[in-house]
């Protein structure tokens, strides 16, 4: 069986067309930033785009925030090299969105202003809750940022031939530019442009693949099985431990509903009905994208071949770009490379903005200044926090060069599921929730997740090279999420807080009727 490996690939050589697409994207998004900067004069505009984003726009922006380079390049690569096992991820990354819709989106919009800790802190004591929520937010955002920055450096080096450090600094500068000057308005539009580009690229690529198989995905899968065995169409070794799979599933399903940069987006729409509609749009777009990864992954397996894909990058990340080059030549490769770059930029911009909101709105304004900071100061602190976080992101990206950081994304989801999500649910749902309960739940959820990840095979075996790990699961959410819920409930029952319970009726009213009531 001779593989249809492309005789030569231009991946890694700077191509004129890739550069043109790349500069077009940068020019358009910086133009948007310039336009947005003139509309960013208040904190409400900086953090929440003045609450004027429509449901459809926010749906696309949510999709843009969520579909990282890991999902585009990583999952296509995983499917192209493992077949069915990769598809388990394609489904797993979507199932958190219905949960966001059913449980979180509307109450969050009605109860908070800029960050999810606004919701947790309603009726509870501000300082301790804000501190604990900032811990969960910053842990989630930092881990997610490291994974994105390191991935960005590697991908840009692979695709444009730029050095790793230059790539990281370039991403950092452009991203800081978006957020610092254009705030949430620019970040939202960058997400929308990126989501449209990514969907266009994925749709064209899938269409080009299917044209070769009579528009019939089953014919594509059958050809994959004919070449690489029936094993590529059935579960393989990836899910050898069912508890591992369930634990990761819990992190993905409930962590999505606790990601600070996703939650922050619900404040950009005018009301809770728009928040609801925007999740519906996002679920549609993201679901379609993951369905397309079925075709892209198997398409790359059949047309490019797993060996050729691994030869360019052992992780398989270049499957989609290689497929684009094979089917559409260098111009299409240039387009896909620019899309991947846009994807990375947009995601790090969203993460940085949500981290900056935690530093400035939660920590500076609420904890240090006890809510008595004027509008000018708030905006200034938000911008200083953005700049600081952007520089930290670049430094972390360079520090973690060549480290295996893929696990950090699922770790970020585990913390979001074990610290942010339980706190939000209990604050919205339960009259008896208290300050002590909230703090215990969030701090225990964050620290226990970090501890168990350290003791897990992910770090002990894969990174430190030990033979065994003390904790058996690769992702700790199966343990840490229930522990966080139980800690929050138990501490609230032991130390009741009458004033918090008394405030619940008002919270309930505002949750349904909105802020004006």
């Amino acid at each position: 069986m001779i593989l249809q490996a492309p005789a030569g690939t231009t991946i890694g050589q700077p191509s004129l067309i890739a550069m043109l697409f790349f500069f077009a994207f940068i020019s358009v998004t910086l133009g948007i930033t310039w336009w947005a900067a003139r509309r960013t004069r208040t904190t409400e505009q900086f953090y929440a785009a003045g609450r004027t984003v429509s449901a459809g726009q926010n749906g696309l922006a949510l999709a843009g925030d969520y579909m990282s380079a890991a999902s585009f390049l990583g999952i296509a690569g995983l499917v192209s090299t493992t077949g069915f096992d990769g598809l388990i991820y394609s489904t797993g990354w979507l199932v958190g969105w219905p949960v966001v819709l059913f449980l979180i989106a509307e109450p969050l919009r009605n109860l908070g202003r800029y960050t999810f800790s606004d919701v947790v802190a309603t009726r509870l004591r501000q300082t301790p809750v804000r501190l604990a929520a900032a811990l969960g937010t910053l842990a989630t955002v930092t881990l997610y940022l490291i994974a994105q920055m390191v991935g960005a450096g590697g991908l840009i080096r692979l695709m444009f031939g730029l050095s790793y450090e230059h790539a990281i600094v370039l991403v950092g500068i452009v991203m800081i530019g978006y957020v610092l000057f254009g705030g949430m308005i620019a970040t939202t539009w960058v997400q929308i442009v990126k989501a449209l580009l990514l969907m266009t690229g994925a749709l064209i690529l899938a269409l080009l693949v299917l044209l070769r198989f009579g528009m019939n995905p089953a014919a594509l899968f059958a050809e994959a099985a004919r070449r690489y065995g029936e094993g590529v169409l059935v579960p393989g070794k990836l899910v050898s431990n069912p508890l591992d799979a369930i634990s990761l599933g819990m992190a993905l399903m409930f962590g999505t509903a606790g990601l600070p940069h996703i939650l922050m987006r619900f404040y950009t729409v005018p009301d809770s009905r728009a928040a609801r509609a925007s999740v519906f749009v996002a679920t549609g777009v993201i679901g379609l994208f993951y369905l397309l990864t079925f075709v892209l992954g198997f398409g790359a397996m059949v047309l490019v071949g797993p060996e050729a894909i691994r030869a360019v990058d052992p992780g398989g990340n270049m499957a989609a770009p290689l497929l684009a080059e094979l089917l559409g030549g260098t111009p299409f490769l240039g387009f896909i490379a620019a899309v991947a770059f846009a994807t990375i930029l947009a995601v790090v911009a969203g993460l940085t903005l949500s981290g900056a909101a935690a530093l400035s709105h939660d920590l500076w304004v609420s904890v240090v200044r006890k809510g008595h900071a004027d509008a000018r100061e708030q905006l200034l602190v938000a911008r200083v926090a953005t700049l600081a976080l952007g520089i930290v992101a670049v430094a972390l990206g360079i520090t973690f060069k060549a480290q295996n950081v893929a696990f950090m994304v699922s770790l970020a989801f585990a913390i979001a599921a074990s610290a942010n999500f339980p706190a939000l649910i209990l604050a919205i749902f339960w009259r008896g929730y208290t300050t002590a309960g909230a703090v215990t739940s969030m701090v225990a959820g964050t620290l226990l997740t970090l501890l168990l990840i350290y003791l897990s095979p992910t770090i002990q075996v894969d990174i430190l090279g030990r033979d065994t790990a003390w904790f058996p699961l690769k992702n700790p959410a199966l343990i840490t999420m229930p522990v966080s819920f139980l800690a929050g409930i138990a501490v609230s029952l032991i130390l009741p807080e009458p004033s918090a319970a008394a405030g619940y009726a008002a919270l309930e009213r505002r949750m349904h009727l909105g802020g004006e009531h």
Partner: protein
Amino acid sequence: MKTLRDLDAARWRVALGLTAAMVFLYFGFVLLVAYGRELLSIKVVPGLTLGILLGALVIVASWILTWIYVRWAAAHYDPGIRALGRESRR
């Protein structure tokens, strides 16, 4: 007219019911992947195994569940909330 308490209870019933359905569908799929390899190997049509079909159906089911919620909220929740909002502004 429905009270806020009624609407609150109805929304949580629907929201929790749909969340439970999503949990059941996705973790059911994960357990099938772990324990039902034989079953998932069945060919629905040549090339399309039950495993791939069910994986795609989990995505389609997510769409349907979100659609059900949006429809329910527009038909049963929003009108009640609007009426209460008018009431409280009076």
